[in-house]
């Protein structure tokens, strides 16, 4: 009875009893609506006419020429409404919340992208919205805090623990356990207890569904590798999903190495973490020798999470996907590089994937293809990167 809540040995439903019936309720509602014609057509309509899908698959010709190896394509999730892939999931979950008769959604956010997307969907669909955000993140992403408020959401500053994404998830779960009847927790990544990792993956899988069709149309063949950044892992799962059965396509996730995986300032759970049970799931986590969840660090608030979604842990365990760590410095260089070569300013999260593409493309043959998931746009990061480079600017 438990098997379908897991990916191999990862996943499960490790949450307080108080939430169990609501989680089962969500599971049932989702199973019903995902195959229901009206839900599917309403969501398709929102994705097309509101979010602006399909997103472009853009051939990065300058970058390809400059690096002199594999052809590089960018899946432009940054062009979606609200500026990242987060809208794909949020429209799905907010619509589901409405179908379930909920009046209110709550969400955690790190960089603020998921919070902004959730607040946007709530405004559109007439739902109340409350966002939980670590204090440190509200400071480094203050523009997004105001953006969420502008959209009508209430933003709760989380001052417990490390005051980042992990603590925002804790607080959102606490809030949900206070009020489940009229509230859905719209989780932002492929994490948490089942069915969330599955639901979020399904809603994000539109990325690879489109990308696979697009590349076959443009190039007549599959890519050699798809590359995406990984915090909890939602854009990566979306980018990987429809390529999993294409065994020739390498799936590569780029996690945050921060100041380096041999320092204590990183968020590289696959590289440095080990198996644990936290936030409702059995997966891989950064933790100390006593099983206390480790404080993590990355220049990117969106990758600053001590764990990874269970399906990633599974894909890693069977050798289907591989995960590498990218430092702050490499990501910032990629951020600047893409801006200058292609005129595209990527989110600092996505810049982690771009950085790895820059490393690996020159080692590949010219007839090979790489698709990089450009999960978000970098406007939100400009001030922080300027600061990283020693320039002080007013946001």
């Amino acid at each position, binding site marked *: 009875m438990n098997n379908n809540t897991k990916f191999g040995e990862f996943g499960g439903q490790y949450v*307080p*009893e108080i939430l169990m019936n609501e989680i089962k309720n969500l599971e049932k509602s989702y199973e019903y609506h995902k195959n229901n014609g009206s839900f599917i057509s309403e969501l398709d309509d929102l994705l097309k006419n509101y979010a602006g899908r399909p997103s472009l698959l853009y051939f990065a010709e300058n970058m390809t020429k400059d690096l002199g190896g594999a052809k590089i394509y960018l899946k432009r999730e940054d062009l979606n409404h609200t500026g990242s892939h987060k809208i794909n999931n949020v429209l799905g979950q907010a619509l589901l919340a409405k179908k379930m008769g909920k009046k209110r959604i709550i969400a955690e956010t790190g960089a603020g992208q998921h919070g902004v997307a959730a607040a946007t969907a709530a405004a559109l669909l007439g739902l109340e919205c409350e966002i939980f955000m670590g204090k440190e993140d509200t400071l480094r992403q203050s523009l997004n805090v105001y953006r969420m408020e502008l959209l009508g959401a209430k933003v709760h500053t989380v001052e417990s623990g490390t005051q980042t994404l992990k603590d925002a998830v*804790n607080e959102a779960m*606490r809030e949900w356990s206070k009020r489940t009847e009229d509230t859905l927790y719209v989780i932002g990544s492929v994490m948490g207890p089942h069915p969330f990792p599955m639901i979020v993956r399904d809603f994000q899988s539109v990325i690879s569904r489109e990308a696979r069709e697009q590349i076959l149309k443009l190039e007549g063949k599959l890519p050699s590798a798809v590359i995406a950044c990984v915090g909890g892992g939602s854009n990566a799962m979306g980018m990987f999903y429809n390529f999993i059965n294409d065994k020739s396509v390498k799936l590569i996730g780029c996690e945050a190495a921060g100041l380096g995986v041999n320092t204590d300032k990183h968020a590289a759970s696959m590289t440095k973490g080990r198996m644990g049970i936290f936030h409702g799931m059995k997966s891989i986590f950064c933790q100390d*020798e006593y099983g*206390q969840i480790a404080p993590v660090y990355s220049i990117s608030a969106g990758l600053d999470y001590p764990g990874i979604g269970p399906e990633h842990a599974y894909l890693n365990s069977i050798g289907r996907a591989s995960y590498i760590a990218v430092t702050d410095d490499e990501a910032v260089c990629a951020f600047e590089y893409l801006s200058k070569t292609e005129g595209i300013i990527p989110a600092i999260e996505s810049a982690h994937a771009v950085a790895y593409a820059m490393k690996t493309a020159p080692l590949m043959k010219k007839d090979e293809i790489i698709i990089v998931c450009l999960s978000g746009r970098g406007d939100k990061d400009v001030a922080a990167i300027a600061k990283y480079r020693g320039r002080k600017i007013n946001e």
Partner: protein
Amino acid sequence: MSNISNAFKNGKAFIGFLTAGDPDIETTKQCILKMEEAGADLIEIGIPFSDPIAEGSVIQSANIRALKSNTFLDKIFEAVIDLRKKTDIPIVFLTYINPVFNYGYERFFSDCKESKTDGLIIPDLPFEEKHEVSDYARNNDIDVISLIAPTSDNRIKQIAKEASGFIYLVSSMGVTGVRSEITTDLKTIVGLIREQTDIPVAIGFGINTPKQAAYLSKISDGVIVGSAIVKIIERYGKNSPEYVYEYVKSMKNAIKSNMLSNISI
């Protein structure tokens, strides 16, 4: 028959919670002995965790203080072994699953047995996942305490049927922390549990006044008090054992006098 049943054999039970190592392990030991002296029937020892998602701010802070005093499992087992020289009071741990998973289930449960710890409450291990530990628990005669919440409804039957030790009935929605009012229809839930099992039902979450304790123990087999005790420890630190004693005594008296008034009715 587990030692836990002894907690309920002399009428309604008072169960006191504190976090191990808050503010240090010596104070924890003294508080436990003082609670027993004041009439507590069972002690619930919280194993500190970095991210206690079912706790309100009071116990969250206790976890942080305990982690600051480097209170990890080895030290806690040692403390229980030490306490066992002085008391047989039933002891259960409250812990999140990750520190236990990390320590190793086999090692953890055999250390529980060795230290004569009687049971375990794991808030993030619901019915669906309890198979993680059930074999280890059974082999070492440790009761894994089941929780039932106001939202459990149709789940009450399956949970109660397989429960051991006692059932922890969560009084209200949300996380731990003192509440001025508890509005859940607990009487009905206790009734549904009783249809399935004879093991004791204790109510926790939000209980802090003698009046609440008196009323809730009337409709169940005992009450669990955590945040109110932890608040005292937060305020008085190393000097808290005396204050904890006074508080537990007042709560236990309220439960007792309530029982007496029942008899007079």
